[in-house]
């Protein structure tokens, strides 16, 4: 699983600096879906027993200390960034990153509207950020077939996961869910990866959580912020999600400014580095 090179140079800059602030470290890792997943995986599988799963980077940094997390991030991103450019063939890496960030930011904003406590909102961001993780290995390992799947979705005007199923006999939800299980991510995040295209099938206790992530995904596709190759979401699902979450479409539209603003801030934060 390569890390996204959109963020790698910033990760290296921040992690190599002896004076890095915990805030910057947290921020830079949390802007990279693969890196966030990997750091949580390493913490949960290598360090901690199943009972005490860590679901947010903030907690991980307090528990393990800034140096350990810095080393984790550095070794993960540097080792795996080397061949990333050419491996992103069907999906554009920058667009995929934008899409993932937008779903994360939107899910967190919806959680705020739903008055979910500040300290729990981070998990919505992480779930949104990671929701399409399953596309990365499909796209990297089978680039030709993935281009084909994207063309098929375009031609038939169907969601990409249906096209994936007809070509690979597996979709990014299943692959993402498998990665989440292997990485020992917690149940709500794992369910978000598995069920964000089939939110009615998820277990009752995670239904609201997954619905918020799925709605954030639908909304991001509607806004066309970045792209993860999904241009034809299912309309019926959108209506159902609005009902399930208990929010109006106009309230979502009001989020537009905030969401775009946050993405812009993330972009500036990452680009500052690439110059330096």
């Amino acid at each position: 699983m390569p890390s996204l090179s959109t963020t790698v140079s910033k990760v290296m800059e921040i992690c190599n600096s002896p004076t890095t602030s915990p805030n910057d470290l947290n921020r830079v890792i949390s802007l990279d879906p693969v890196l966030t997943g990997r750091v949580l995986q390493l913490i949960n599988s290598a360090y901690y027993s199943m009972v005490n799963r860590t679901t947010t980077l903030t907690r991980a940094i307090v528990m393990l200390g800034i140096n350990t997390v810095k080393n984790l991030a550095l070794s993960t991103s540097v080792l795996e960034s080397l061949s990333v450019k050419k491996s992103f063939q069907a999906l554009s890496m920058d667009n995929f990153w934008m899409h993932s960030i937008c779903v994360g930011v939107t899910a967190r904003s919806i959680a705020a509207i739903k008055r979910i406590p500040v300290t729990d909102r981070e998990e919505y961001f992480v779930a949104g950020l990671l929701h399409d993780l399953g596309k990365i290995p499909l796209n990297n390992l089978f680039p030709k077939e993935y281009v084909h799947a994207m063309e098929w979705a375009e031609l038939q005007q169907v969601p990409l996961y249906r096209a994936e199923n007809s070509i690979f006999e597996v979709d990014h939800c299943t692959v993402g869910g498998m990665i989440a299980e292997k990485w020992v991510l917690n149940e709500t995040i794992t369910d978000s990866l598995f069920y964000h295209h089939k939110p009615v099938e998820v277990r009752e206790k995670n239904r609201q959580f997954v619905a918020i992530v799925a709605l954030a995904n639908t909304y991001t596709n509607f806004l066309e912020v970045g792209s993860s190759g999904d241009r034809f979401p299912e309309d019926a699902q959108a209506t159902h999600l609005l009902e399930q979450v208990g929010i109006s479409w106009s309230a979502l539209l009001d989020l537009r400014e905030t969401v775009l603003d946050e993405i812009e801030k993330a972009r500036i934060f990452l680009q500052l580095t690439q110059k330096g």
Partner: protein
Amino acid sequence: MKVKFWGVRGSIPCPGPYTIKYGGNTACIELRFEDSDRLIIIDAGSGIRELGNYMMANDLPNGPIKTEIFLTHTHWDHIMGFPFFKPGYVQGTKLKIYGPVSYEDDSLENVVGGQLTYRYFPVRQAELASEIEYINLKENRFDLGEGITLTTKYLNHPVLCLGYRFEYRDKVFCTAYDTEPFQNVFCTDHDDPSYNEAMAHEGDQAARTENQRVEEFIAGADLLIYDAQYTQKEYESTRIGWGHSSCEYAIAAAKRAGAKRLAMFHHDPVRTDDQIDELTEKYCSRDHTGDTDIFFAREGMEIEL
């Protein structure tokens, strides 16, 4: 249980005229159990050399030595005595060495046994006559057999570090070093441009939960050995983030957790006997300590639980 201190010093051995009373060897604790020949050693600092010599004279005549060494972490002052542990050179000795290792590092065998390579030492690990097994530990609860249970807990130190809680026949012996209180490391200044409300809140909550978990871990200990390398003033001046606690924090935590006896441990290498005596007067008088018996650990000290 019977506990004996073979090394109480932190960071580096510091023999000399100013450390005669409390001792200059780094961490090593011997733990024995009544009605059992089980021997557990915590940490292999320079103090383990003398313990090894004692075992050669007193345990070996009764048959081959079998012992378990629990390393709290792999910083040098906690493993440096291992090459000088004589039973390791004796045919028939069986050693089990437990400890935590960060994922990116080498195995426990390389980290600890790696001291026995020609560049550092004239004997290689492969040349040791004893049988050594290395076992990686995480946070968990273990049944060690013979009615002994062990609970481990991650502490706050710049490298993975475990506290150990041994329970045997209703008695609890607990170590919590090297550690300092968990902190909210995130920016809490609203005016700082990097301030983030969620991070600040969660950092605060995480630090509080983790400190609470450490206190649950040490709760009700009959003997608690706690990191007390600094005074609060020293700690706050420049040493936050170094992974050690102050005497004041150790005392407060032990009292909150209802520990019956607190041994303050991992003395700073610059701390002289006179200074420790002064601190004893200041912190360990009965009117100060309430129900908890508080003292500074001394090399050679034995405590029966």
